[in-house]
């Protein structure tokens, strides 16, 4: 008797009520999806030839996954009530370690390890500064971004490292290769699949794992979380470490995709990644977030650039439309759901 009535409404009746519950729970991600679809329709109408051509999508998917690897963990940091502006330099410095190891003849898989270690270390340092030292994450990570990029500049004096042979590495084939005969898009970039897998893992971690749920509770009400025995500081540090790991993976991927490590690697990620997080529906005030929505945000931001060129406008319009979409999306999210705090 006790558990009969409400246990599995979703399974028993895939009815309107269940659908409504699904929409209510996922309305931020769904509204990001709506924005993306509308954009895609507009671009396709503006230039059918470009947007029905698989090559267009392949070109976009070559770089898009790099952003996914930083955006997914950023959702955790933002949901925990903090912000991280240091990830571009973390991408740079961890991929520098990868590049140097590769250059000194390390096995390409082994060369990923120092990159990951540096990512974790940066996350630990930033997290500790924010929690135990009590610095504002906005300012501390801004400083850290300059600091790490400065170390790269001092260490390299602006000289990059090229890897013309990298396509012979098994690591390249596994993580940045192409899939021949992929449906619709021949020579599909395999890292797009890794990026999507990362989103899936991020979704499980955020919504179904104790860590992600604690991240959200800590961001919603740190006092209450403390009172219920959640270690607020370590949960936040965990979120920053996750960003470090994501940034390291993004950095490694960037070197593989571009066959080059530049001292500026990662720099260009700052604004598009943050825009993707918020356009996708993760709010600025903490406590909640959407991994799927913000990942769709990455698609929105990445498609805008291609779409504008494809629509016959010059690159000068990109920033204008980026700004327009960001603001319209935020207005959409605002009216789509109440703000509780």
């Amino acid at each position, binding site marked *: 008797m*006790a*558990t009969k009535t*409400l*246990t*599995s409404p979703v399974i028993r009746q895939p009815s309107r009520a269940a659908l409504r*519950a699904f929409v209510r*729970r996922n309305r931020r991600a769904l509204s990001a999806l709506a924005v993306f679809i509308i954009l895609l329709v507009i671009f396709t109408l503006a230039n059918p030839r470009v947007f029905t051509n698989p090559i267009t999508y392949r070109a976009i998917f070559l770089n898009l996954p790099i952003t996914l690897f930083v955006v997914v963990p950023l959702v955790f940091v933002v949901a925990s009530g903090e912000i991280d502006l240091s990830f571009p330099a973390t991408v740079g410095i961890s991929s520098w370690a990868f590049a140097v190891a590769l250059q000194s003849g390390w096995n390409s898989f082994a060369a990923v390890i120092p990159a990951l270690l540096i990512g974790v270390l940066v996350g630990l340092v930033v997290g500790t500064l924010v929690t135990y030292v009590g610095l504002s994450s906005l300012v501390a990570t801004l400083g850290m971004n300059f600091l790490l990029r400065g170390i790269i500049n001092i260490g390299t004096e602006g000289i990059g490292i090229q890897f013309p042979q990298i396509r012979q590495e098994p690591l390249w084939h596994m993580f940045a290769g192409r899939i021949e005969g992929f449906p619709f898009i021949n020579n599909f970039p395999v890292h797009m699949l890794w990026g999507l897998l990362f989103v899936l893992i991020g979704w*499980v971690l955020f919504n*179904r*794992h*104790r*860590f992600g*749920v*604690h991240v*959200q*509770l800590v961001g*919603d*009400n740190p*006092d*209450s*979380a*403390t*009172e*219920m*025995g*959640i270690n607020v500081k370590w949960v936040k540090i965990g979120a920053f470490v996750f960003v470090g790991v994501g940034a390291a993976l993004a950095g490694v991927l960037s070197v593989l995709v571009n066959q080059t490590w530049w001292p500026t690697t990662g720099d260009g990620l700052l604004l598009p990644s943050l825009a993707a997080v918020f356009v996708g529906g993760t709010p600025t005030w903490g*406590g*909640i977030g959407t991994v799927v929505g913000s990942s769709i945000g990455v698609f929105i931001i990445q498609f805008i650039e291609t779409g504008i060129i494809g629509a016959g406008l010059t690159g000068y319009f990109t920033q204008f439309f980026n700004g327009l979409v960001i603001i319209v999306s935020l207005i959409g999210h605002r009216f789509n759901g*109440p703000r*509780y*705090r």
Partner: protein
Amino acid sequence: MSIPLIEFKNITKSFGSVNALTNVSFHINEHEIVGLIGDNGAGKSTLIKILAGVHAPSSGEIWLRGRRIEGGWNVAKAHAAGIETVYQDRALAVQHTIASNIFMGREITSPLGLIRVRKQYEEAERLMREIGFTSRVFTPDSVIATLSGGERQGVAIARALYFEAELIVLDEPTTALSLIETQKVYNFMLAAKEKGSSVLFISHNIYHAYDIADRFVIIDRGTVVMQADKSEIASAEQLVQHMKDFARAGHHA
């Protein structure tokens, strides 16, 4: 006399230069309702947070069932000892559901740390039915921000209930509530005592406190100034008089 459930011996707590508690000693027996009374800023919430493991005392001893707590005191230990606390304000994560608030910090998980969402939903639902949340349109998936103050307090109390506390601690549980809802909370406290738990609660309404407590602890500017059984106090008016006397004595001292 039997061994107390929990006992504070000479507990002192200071926040920097502020002495919130000075040499506080008191105890709670099994199976009793204790009313903790004192003026604003007297140190009641601080005392409760020490009890709950949120703050560690600056000095002094905590004894559980005749055993001294060694090696630090924290929320996990307090939970393990069966101490559940309902806090004064903002005790819930408002953007989250009833179910995730009930299980906050103690989620039901698989060995990998994955949350058993269905199980938590069912348990929360059973609990809500037990404490009479059923007449409402709420489900365990309802978001806290859509609940009234009294309903939120109900969730906070349900959380304490779920973990079958030996001692339930409530910090001004009725401040935001209507008369009827206040009565519900008191009935719940009496029911918890019937089931064998002890209750410590703070109330600014001495008349209410007098009605349901078995014993009173009066605290004034960080020290316990009086502990008395109900039998030693003739009426709520006398309790009020005691409080005024202590306050005046303090001012002259």
